[in-house]
């Protein structure tokens, strides 16, 4: 795996370097207008190619058929490609100027790819920003310019064993103090080996940690400068590490052990996204039914969770810009968003879709919908993957007791500042 991470870094670096100097024909450069030109009215015509990843990519074909039924003069070719190494694929395509007209884009990659100049800024007036979850819309904005729109979203909640919680006499935690008590209750009175499972470090630990930072009132960036060594950030790191120090969270989680542990009752709670609903149903079977629930993030200064998912972008090299944007607009219409949920279960980024049907009735889904209103993502920046590595490393060092939170946040700030935001 390490091997591929290096490859990714190289590919990304080259893609940035190469396109940074090579892309000089037409279109606004850095510091250009904050929105793209208007898109013509009327029906869409001509051909476009669309790239999408994984299961969503496969099902996108059904949505594309609906679009071409409404716009008979248009033709949409959809290519699905694997999530594995999707980042490399997009980076190389941009470097080689072999981009499609439209593609799906991981929400945390937006900053990096927008900086290559390959993405078309979102046309003014084509989308109603208020129709989307605010945290989702923010993932598309780089230095004040929106590139593309959110397509589907996910957020993190606290999965927990209700039977153990009942035994311990603890309810859904409302704040940090209650969350600690909740984890302790699940462990001591509930009989779980671990009260809660949190990612102790390694790649992606930032996704697990940042919600606590936001809840403490900290943020990654303020006025274009990193704010990783604020007192709030220290408080958050201190709090995050306290679960491990008090023996409430395991400092080592083998892949797959979290689900098994939850099913067997060894792990009382964990923080994860909507995909775990089907995993738990499948793995827990009838024995686990009715014994688990999700709880919103605890509210300290805020009750913010992490928002992830994917957006849709249009590439500047497109020959059919109008149709490309019209297709994107179609995909973010409430009807198409509903259909995407029906087909693959991806949570809609458009809030109107949540007003009816299963999304409005199912209590678990409703909990995700409610949390999405208060969820955010780190600011889009070209250097995010590197900065994320620094944060992951800081978390791990504190959790393992190698450094104290004060030193760790100072180091994180220094390293992140040295990397910069890339703008």
């Amino acid at each position, binding site marked *: 795996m390490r091997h591929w991470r290096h490859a990714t870094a*190289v590919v990304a670096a*080259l893609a940035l370097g190469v396109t940074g100097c090579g892309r000089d024909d037409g279109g606004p450069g850095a510091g250009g207008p904050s929105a793209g030109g208007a898109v013509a009215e009327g029906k869409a015509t001509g051909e476009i190619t669309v790239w999408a990843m994984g299961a969503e990519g496969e099902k996108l074909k059904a949505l594309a058929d609906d679009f071409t039924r409404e716009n008979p003069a248009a033709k949409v070719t959809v*290519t699905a490609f694997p999530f594995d*190494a999707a980042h490399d694929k997009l980076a190389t395509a941009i470097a080689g*100027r072999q981009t499609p007209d439209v593609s799906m884009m991981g929400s945390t990659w937006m900053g990096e790819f927008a900086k290559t100049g390959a993405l078309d800024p979102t046309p003014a007036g084509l989308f109603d920003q208020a129709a989307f979850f605010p945290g989702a819309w923010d993932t598309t904005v780089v230095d004040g310019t929106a590139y593309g729109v959110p397509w589907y979203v996910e957020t993190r909640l606290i999965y927990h064993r209700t039977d153990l919680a009942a035994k311990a006499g603890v309810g859904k935690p409302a704040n940090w103090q209650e969350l600690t008590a909740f984890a302790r209750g699940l462990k001591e009175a509930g009989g779980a080996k671990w009260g809660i499972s949190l990612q102790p470090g390694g790649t992606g630990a930032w996704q697990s940690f940042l919600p606590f930072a936001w809840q403490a009132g900290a943020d990654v960036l303020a006025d274009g400068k990193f704010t990783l060594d604020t007192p709030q950030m220290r408080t958050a790191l201190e709090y995050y590490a306290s679960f491990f120090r008090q023996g409430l969270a395991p400092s080592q989680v083998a892949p797959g052990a979290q689900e*098994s542990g939850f099913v067997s009752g060894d792990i009382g709670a964990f923080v994860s996204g909507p995909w775990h609903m*089907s995993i738990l149903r499948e*793995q827990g079977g009838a024995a686990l039914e009715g014994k688990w629930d999700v709880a919103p993030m605890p509210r300290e200064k805020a009750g913010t969770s992490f928002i992830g998912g994917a957006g849709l972008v249009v590439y500047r090299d497109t020959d059919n810009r109008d149709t490309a944007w019209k297709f994107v607009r179609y995909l973010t219409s409430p009807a198409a968003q509903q259909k995407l949920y029906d087909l693959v279960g991806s949570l809609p980024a458009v809030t109107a879709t949540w007003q009816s049907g299963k999304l409005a009735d199912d209590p678990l889904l409703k909990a995700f919908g409610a949390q999405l209103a208060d969820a955010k993502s780190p600011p889009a920046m070209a250097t995010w993957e590197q900065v994320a590595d620094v944060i992951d490393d800081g978390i791990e060092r504190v959790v393992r007791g190698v450094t104290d939170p004060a030193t760790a946040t100072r180091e994180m700030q220094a390293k992140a500042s040295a990397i910069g935001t890339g703008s």
Partner: protein
Amino acid sequence: MTTTAKKRERGQPWVYVVLAGGLVVLVGPFVWMLLGSVKPDAEIRRVPPTWLPEAPTLDNYRHLFTELDFPAFFLNSVLVAGAVTVGNLVFCSMLGYALAKLEFPGRRVVFALVLGMLMVPGMVTFVPLFMLVSRLGLVDSYAGLILPWLASPFGVFLMRQFMTGLPDDLIQAARVDGAGELRIFARVVLPLCGPALATLGILTFLSSWNNFLWPLVVAQSEDRYTLPVALALYAIGENNTRYGLLMAGSVAVIVPVLLVFVALQRHFVQGIATTGLK
């Protein structure tokens, strides 16, 4: 290896203990994959894991052949790996022969160049190579998948080292008999290179068959996907991996390679022994 050495080793049981240990380490993951391919996902993910499937199922294989256009992806893989292997056998042995047996100005320079290329990691040339292919208009074509890999510096090096060991007298004799260089190459040298060709063939086939990143990037429509790319598309989700499908697919990917290896094994082992290379 002399016969006395052979006898001595056979007499020592600890050798077999060590070998058995190595075998378990090597074969363990493979057996896990085989068994995993007939388990449902929930059982694969379970901790502590089960070795033998509780309720063996062929569902994973059924998904593999119904959800994926398996024959098409398989054919793509065969075509690409086959063409790349043939190309390597032809071109690397030609260049290897020239470097080993022909006297021409600049021979040392060419050989140094080959060695130099051997030392440049593929990651470094990946994006430039893609840009080259893209400017030639070969993106999303079989040519784009095959052409860049038709000859490899490693293959040239391997063939050159092997051919250097062939007696010059043989080639001289053929020359005296009036054979041209092409005829000498095809009729005298190549038939003697069986082990080296088998080694090169199997290594090239393996790396091309398993290649993921290049076909992922070059193939821009599903018609051109090779097996590893197609498998990743269907089995690996954003947050969730379908391990059962992945393992069933891996079994289907490995079986042809296994057949190739079994067919060439005898030559393969001999090739490694002769060249001292892997």
